[in-house]
């Protein structure tokens, strides 16, 4: 019974995905709203189920005779599952307006979304390289399909093909890596690989190093680090707005969940081997992402490009892992901060796009603050958070990452990252300037807004969390609100559970 509790959320998501798929066979009987309701309710149940063990420190391998040690359920995976479910749920709610306004979002879309979530959750639980690959491909294929969903946009074909072909190509690297690892160690189980590493000296491990580095490439591709970032702009551009948000935030978290586990729990010595590669990659990711973001004229592409810069910050925390464990907390915290702000900012834009077709470039956002002050204010909050301005959770995230990077001795990288932050102020504030400092453009005027929608409330919820997460409890010491320390503690419990020997 105790074991069942832990596998329930994942199983429930799988069942929901299949269930919604069956539902979509009766197309004419249900409308989009019902699909959204059903999926949301199922997600909320899964979320509650995963919240039960939150705060405990555990590491289990339930039903070992069935799963044969390929899946592991610990505080770490539980914590990530919560984030993933929450990310998906918020995507669904923020997209409500968008999904309903577009003809092409049929029932099966929600099934695909749930399948993507299933793949990601499995990835967070994977303790074996091939299982991880399968989980990754389940998630990836679902995302490929969702990228191509926008049948009104001619760019979608380019987007889906670029992503599919490059993604499959990089997937082959992963498999090659697995083969090499297997060749060296005769196992693909992470725990056994760890045992192999600790039992052998450096000279015996050339093959293992090459294999794991190939796997690292897949990781870098999926999170869009340099030099694997070339797909980002076109794919994000062609994908429906809300899917872009999903890819930039939730999918990234899933990828990190597996690689953090692998690196921390099992192949820690590798991080030293990767040190110099990562050093160069971070520099280029930051520089290139910043350059891309400055040169964009379309807001969606700017956000996409800036997500590359955020990948750079995440990698900065990732590289510091080799020096101390606190960097892992920083990585996870930053992921949460980015999830909130990215979902929020992409979400607002998709919410606006679903009503007016013109809000695409910076210019189109002129005067938004006068037309819709609350939306503009919320957008400002998210942009502040992305830029790391104090009083938002993005600031705490950056504080955390930079402190740990300096603590680990990567002072130059930290300075570079702060310079990138500084430049990011320019392209984020430009949008704020557009919203507040100009009169509204006539062709963008639209008088029949209906802002009393699920989407708006979901976005407002995110905005509040973004602020509360940045201010924390001490400033409002008379109101016991969400405490940053609690969040940090949660990440610490999650990471610590990786080291439970079972």
């Amino acid at each position, binding site marked *: 019974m105790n074991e069942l509790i832990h596998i329930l959320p994942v199983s429930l998501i799988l069942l929901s995905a299949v269930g919604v798929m069956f539902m979509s066979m009766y197309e004419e009987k249900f409308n989009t709203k019902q699909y959204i309701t059903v999926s949301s309710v199922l997600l909320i149940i899964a979320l509650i189920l995963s919240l039960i063990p939150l705060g405990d420190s555990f590491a289990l391998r339930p039903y070992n005779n069935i799963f044969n040690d390929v899946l592991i359920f610990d505080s770490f995976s539980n914590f990530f599952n919560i984030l993933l479910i929450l990310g998906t749920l918020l995507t669904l709610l923020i997209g409500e307006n968008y999904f309903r306004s577009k003809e092409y979002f049929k029932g099966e879309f929600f099934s695909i979304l749930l399948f993507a979530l299933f793949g990601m959750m499995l990835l967070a639980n994977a303790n074996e390289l091939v299982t991880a690959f399968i989980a990754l491909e389940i998630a990836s294929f679902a995302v490929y399909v969702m990228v191509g969903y926008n049948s009104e946009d001619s760019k979608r074909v380019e987007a889906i093909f670029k992503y599919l072909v490059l993604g499959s190509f990089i997937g082959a690297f992963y498999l090659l890596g697995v083969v090499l690892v297997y060749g060296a160690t005769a196992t693909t189980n992470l725990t056994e690989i760890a045992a192999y590493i600790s039992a052998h000296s450096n000279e015996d491990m050339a093959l293992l190093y090459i294999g794991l580095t190939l796997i690292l490439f897949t990781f870098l591709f999926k999170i869009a680090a340099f030099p694997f970032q070339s797909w980002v702009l076109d794919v994000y551009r062609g994908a429906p707005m809300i899917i872009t948000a999903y890819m930039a935030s939730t999918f990234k978290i899933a990828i990190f969940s597996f690689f953090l586990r692998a690196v921390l729990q099992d192949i820690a010595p590798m991080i030293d081997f990767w040190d110099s590669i990562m050093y160069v990659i971070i520099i280029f990711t930051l520089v290139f992402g910043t350059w891309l973001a400055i040169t964009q004229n379309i807001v969606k592409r700017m956000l996409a490009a800036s997500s590359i810069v955020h990948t750079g910050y995440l990698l900065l925390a990732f590289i510091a892992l080799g020096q101390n464990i606190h960097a892992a907390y920083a990585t996870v915290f930053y992921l949460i901060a980015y999830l909130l702000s990215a979902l929020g900012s992409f979400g607002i834009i998709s919410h606006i796009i679903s009503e007016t077709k013109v809000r695409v470039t910076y210019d189109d956002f002129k005067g938004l603050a006068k037309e819709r002050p609350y939306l503009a204010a919320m957008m400002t909050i998210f942009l502040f958070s992305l830029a790391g301005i104090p009083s938002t959770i993005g600031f705490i995230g950056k*504080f955390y990452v930079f402190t740990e990077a300096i603590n680990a001795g990567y002072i130059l990288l930290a300075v570079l990252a*702060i*310079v990138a932050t500084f430049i990011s102020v320019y392209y984020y504030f430009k949008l704020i*300037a557009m919203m507040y*400092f100009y009169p509204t453009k006539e062709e963008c005027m639209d008088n029949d807004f209906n802002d009393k929608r699920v989407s708006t409330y979901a976005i407002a919820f995110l905005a509040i969390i973004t602020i509360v997460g940045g201010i*924390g409890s*001490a400033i409002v010491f008379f109101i016991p609100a969400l405490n940053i320390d609690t969040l940090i503690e949660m990440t610490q419990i999650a990471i610590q559970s990786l080291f439970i020997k079972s």
Partner: protein
Amino acid sequence: MSADILSFIIFLPAVVAFGLMITTKHVETVRNIAFLTTTVILALVLKLYIEFEPSAGMQFVTNVPWIASYGINYYIGVDGFSLTILMMIAILIPTAYLLLWEGRTKGYWINMLLVQAGVTGSLLALDVILFYFFWEVMLLPVFLMIGIYGFGDKVFTTIKVTVYTMLGSLLMFVAMLYLGVTYHAEFGSWSFQYDSLTQITSLSYNEKIWLFLAFLSAFAIKIPIFPLHTWIMETYKNAPTGAVFLLSSIMAKLGVYAIVRFLIPIFPEIYVEFSSWFVFIGLFGLVYFGVAALMQDDIKRMFAYSSASHLSFIAAGIFSLNAFGINGALYLIIAHAIATGALFLLVGIIHDETGYKTIKDLGGLAKQSPIFTTIFAIMLFANVGLPGTNGFVSELLIIFGIYEFNHTLGYISALTVIIGASYMLWMFQRAILQDREGEALKFRDLKIKEIVGLAPWVILVFLMGIYPDIFIDKFEPTVTHYLNDILHIGAAK
């Protein structure tokens, strides 16, 4: 209660601002409630000023954990130094409201309140991260004010001022993190409190210089010290009166304040070693900006240069390493805030009423508006340091300070004060007194409300000029403590 009074002073304007933002749309209600809030704060600060005992230590301290896992605390307190500036802010802001009374929108007043919260917060913060938090937060409302209510190429101006100040802030941020990490390495626990950071001993000489410069860049941009001043020209010209007032009278002073609060205790040796450079740069700025002010035709730009010139003088005083100079600089902070703040607001009235900004367009105002001219003249004389005004006392003290620091520089500083007098009086003669040919300029005199608003400033100008001891007594022990216990060079005899 008395321990929480500081938190109350910081957060009251912010809470009121958010409340007003979502509740009412009525501009006048917003303005009246905002004004009421500032008077409540003034009353609280007065209470604080009376209860404060003149001694070197921090009083009314609140210290509760904020982000406990990083040793970041909500740590605030007040000493003689910050109390003086707090008092100044509390008096200046409500009177500024009275002068800006008509024709503003809701957002304007809300932004003013938010700035007050940010400024007071960074003034009282004793934890560097908390300080950084407020330091950035106070910039955002000003950013909005310039962008929404500014003139001319306001968006470019906004981006320029944001880019400049952010660059400094982020350099400072790196330095703060570096100090925190160093503290962690040395003591095994995290702390960002400024009094913990002063205990760090493991920094090398080069590291200290870099950190010192990183901090200083943020403060110097805000002040601004030559050569980091280029943002102020467009900003003072294109920004709305309220924002110019806040930037020049209040925020610039926080740059000076931060040097004393953080740089002196954390890097005392570097401070002493490089002080002659900064005295020199300060005096150079005094002359450079003074000459630039002489050549201006736009009256706001002229005041911008004049303000920068005086701020350089303050910087020179701060770095002069003796009680005369530092007391004088502190005194000039107050004097300059009053004089420049009033002048910017009065020029703002001219601009609002007539639409003219250049000196040659004006003239003959004296005939139509005697009260305006009188107050303008008083502030002008305070600004150039006429005996009997607070400007005189502070300039004299700084000149003494610099003289003690280095005789030659002392003579130079005494002579350069003439530059200030010449451009100010020349402007006064051309813009206010001299009759203008052609059609008469239509200009109203000050209203009762505005006179009431300016009255405390006029009183302060003379009170501080004639009987400085009642003010100096409050902060002198703090300055002495800095010189004796932190810099170990002994207060002046």
